[in-house]
């Protein structure tokens, strides 16, 4: 156990030097550009906001069921089957009836596997888009588990894109936007200490439509009663959509030169411009409601035909609200409303305080352990301490190499590693002491001390590794950072104990083998 070949010594030395270099690159700026990675600081250390958003897919599901009605009608009409009494119940079930003699035919069409255009079959899940049940001539249609998965996945991807555009527009530095599960999205915004604006922006679906106001005060089949944004009045608005947010090319806040009011100006794509031109030329004198997320922003009276494809929205905006509205319109609508279900925000000065406290605790813990080991083992304590320092460099070096995220619990993990890392050396040293009692030859005692303590050292470290791995897979955020440092710490500890410390021990012992009391 004590013999090291030259090549091994060189390998160990090189490996260690590389990681010391990587460790130092966090603190010293090297000009050579060989290595310019840095350890990432978690939101709890650098300050920032973490938001967990959940997509409310209910409206999407209802809408998709709604869209299924005409498809089904059309499909079965071609087969001369008449479906009637369509109804959507509980936002998730579509009910319809057919004549009793056609029940089996409808059933067969819904169950078909190849090229089923009304109830798509997913070979990868071996399931249809819809599950259904039949009660006499009454059909009940639900999205199957996998049909829901498809819907959720696609609305999650769309939402992610929209969120990314909105967050990018605000210009926070290095935002991190990730999917979680199939209906959640994590938004991490480093450096942001007040997320209220972003929460406002993400909380809006930003579904924009232009629709005519209908005279009268009662809702009819093709119209609905909507409130104004400021709650001042209500109006009956047609359900027919003239323009939607999809037709917008650009939107910007600006100042109306005549009224000196803050407005949002917009440009339309070709289709949108055409429709807008037609609607405004035929509708002169009518009121055109601009509806955002089910509320009327404003409903101006059309004075002239607008054929240029650009226009403006006024609605008593402040400059801030006009800027936000323009931003929302530019970045497009979310497929479904989002709910913020978790939020954690740390101010930058608390983050800095945490870093300071963490470093302080690390320094003191480190110092105490080093002093203790030195007094307990003297020269071997020194070896253990050099190992411990290099272990720390290796640990931080590896975290840097993988650009891991360091959190406050992560720092605690490093300190804990410092406390526990000496355990391996202690196990070995104590074993050597025991071996020396029955063995005259010191070299053999050292050798068998290393050999016999091996299983205990490895077993002891594996148990901690198991705990760290479970934490890694089950934990979230800062806690994950703890499990990473704890887990990586075990590997660096084993390396430093079995290569660095053993090498140092071997060098010392072979030089001083004739000394009476080595340890």
């Amino acid at each position, binding site marked *: 156990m004590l013999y090291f070949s030259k090549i091994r010594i060189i390998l160990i030395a090189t490996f260690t030097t590389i990681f010391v270099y990587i460790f130092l690159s966090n603190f010293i700026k090297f000009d050579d550009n060989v290595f310019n990675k840095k350890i990432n600081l978690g939101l709890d250390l650098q300050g920032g906001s973490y938001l967990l958003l959940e997509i409310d897919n209910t409206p999407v599901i209802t809408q998709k069921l709604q869209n299924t009605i005409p498809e089904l009608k059309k499909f079965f009409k071609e087969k001369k089957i008449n479906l009637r009494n369509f109804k959507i119940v509980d936002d998730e079930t579509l009910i319809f009836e057919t004549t009793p003699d056609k029940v089996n035919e409808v059933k067969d069409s819904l169950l078909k596997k190849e090229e089923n255009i009304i109830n798509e079959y997913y070979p990868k899940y071996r399931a249809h888009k819809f599950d259904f049940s039949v009660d006499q001539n009454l059909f009940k249609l639900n999205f199957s588990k996998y049909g829901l998965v498809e819907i959720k996945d696609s609305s999650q991807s769309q939402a992610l894109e929209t969120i990314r555009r909105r967050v990018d527009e605000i210009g926070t530095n290095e935002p991190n936007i990730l999917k979680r599960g199939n209906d959640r999205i994590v938004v991490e915004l480093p450096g942001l200490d007040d997320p209220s604006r972003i929460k406002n922006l993400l909380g809006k679906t930003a579904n924009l439509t232009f629709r005519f106001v209908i005279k009268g005060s009662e809702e009819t089949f093709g119209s609905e009663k909507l409130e104004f944004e400021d709650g001042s009045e209500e109006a009956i608005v047609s359900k027919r959509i003239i323009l939607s947010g999809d037709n917008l090319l650009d939107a910007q806040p600006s100042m109306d030169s005549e009224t000196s009011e803050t407005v949002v100006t917009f440009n339309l794509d070709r289709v949108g411009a055409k429709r807008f031109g037609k609607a405004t030329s035929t509708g002169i004198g009518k009121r055109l409601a601009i509806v955002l997320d089910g509320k009327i922003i404003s409903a101006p009276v059309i004075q002239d035909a607008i054929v240029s494809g650009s226009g403006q929205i006024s609605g008593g905006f402040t400059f801030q609200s006009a800027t936000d509205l323009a931003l929302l319109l530019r970045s497009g609508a979310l497929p479904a409303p989002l709910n913020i279900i978790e939020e954690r925000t740390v101010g930058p000065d608390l983050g800095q305080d945490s870093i300071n406290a963490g470093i302080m605790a690390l320094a003191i813990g480190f110092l105490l352990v080093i002093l203790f080991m030195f007094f307990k083992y003297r020269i071997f304590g020194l070896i253990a301490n050099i190992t411990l320092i290099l272990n720390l460099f290796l640990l931080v070096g590896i975290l840097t190499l993988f650009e891991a995220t360091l959190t406050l619990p992560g720092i605690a993990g490093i300190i804990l590693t410092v406390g526990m890392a*000496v355990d391996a050396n202690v196990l070995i040293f104590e074993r050597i002491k025991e071996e020396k009692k029955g063995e005259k030859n010191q070299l053999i005692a050292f050798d068998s001390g290393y050999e016999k303590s091996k299983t205990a050292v490895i077993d002891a470290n594996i148990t901690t590794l198991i705990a760290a791995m479970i934490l890694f897979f089950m934990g979230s955020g800062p806690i994950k950072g703890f499990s990473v440092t704890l887990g990586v710490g075990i590997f660096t500890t084993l390396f430093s104990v079995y290569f660095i410390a053993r090498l140092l021990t071997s060098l010392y012992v072979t030089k001083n083998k004739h000394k009476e009391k080595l340890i």
Partner: protein
Amino acid sequence: MNKSVPFNKFYRLFNIISSLLIVLSIVLLIFKGLNFGVDFKGGTLIELRTTDKNISVSNIRDSLNQLNLGDVSVKNFGSEQDYLIKFEKKDFNNPDFISDLKNKLASSLGNGFEFRRVENVGPKVSSELLKSGIIAIALSLAAMLIYIWIRFEWQFSLGAILALFHDVLITLGIFSLFGLEINLSIVAAVLTIVGYSMNDTVVIFDRVRENLKKYSDIKIFDLTNISINETLSRTIITSVTTLLALFSIFLFGGEILKGFSLAMILGVFFGTYSSIYIANPILVFLQVSQKTILKEEKD
């Protein structure tokens, strides 16, 4: 031979004490329960720092009580000027909630304060976090059980796992007794305790197994004592260095890590104790002998 400590003389005494502590902890956990933080209960946590000397716990509490936030708790957090506010919030979906709250507080307290940290956890997330925390702890216990079973024999596995239950239960019992907050970092601490306590037990077990092979004529009752003594200085040194590290986190690592490091300190203490006084007596109780090991090796 060095002077050896007759640990085995006190097996019975400490087993009775441990049993009592476990029963007491279970009673506390059932009847008093745990003080779950916002991570597991849901609600809002605000860390507030004041620059105005006139702001105190009582006037923060008074101004918050006027806002109808439900059960509000306000207490000092570390220093004189830092406060921790907790309440179960109702309207989770208002994105301006925190800024509104700040404005309302400012109107009654003045502007001499700032929010340093805000955590909002919805009921769905908190129940998921609680569930995954419990699963993580259960999983780690199961993983340890299996690992020891593979490495040793079932008698050892049982001893180690009972020692773990003992450590986790008593640590949680103490948290319940003093009403200390249970949050995500406590779960991390409990898992680390599981790892540490196991580590300690394994080292002694490793020695017990070695000695079982070496001495066929020594009864397990004395054999465990020999093994404990042989590994004693290692047990003490490792506990000391780990505790040195933990105490420096506890004292200098800031308020946020207080609960975590306290749980770990308790865990290291009970982990070390249980390795000696729970894990080993189980081996004695199960009458582990040289045969136990040799049988395994024949297989």
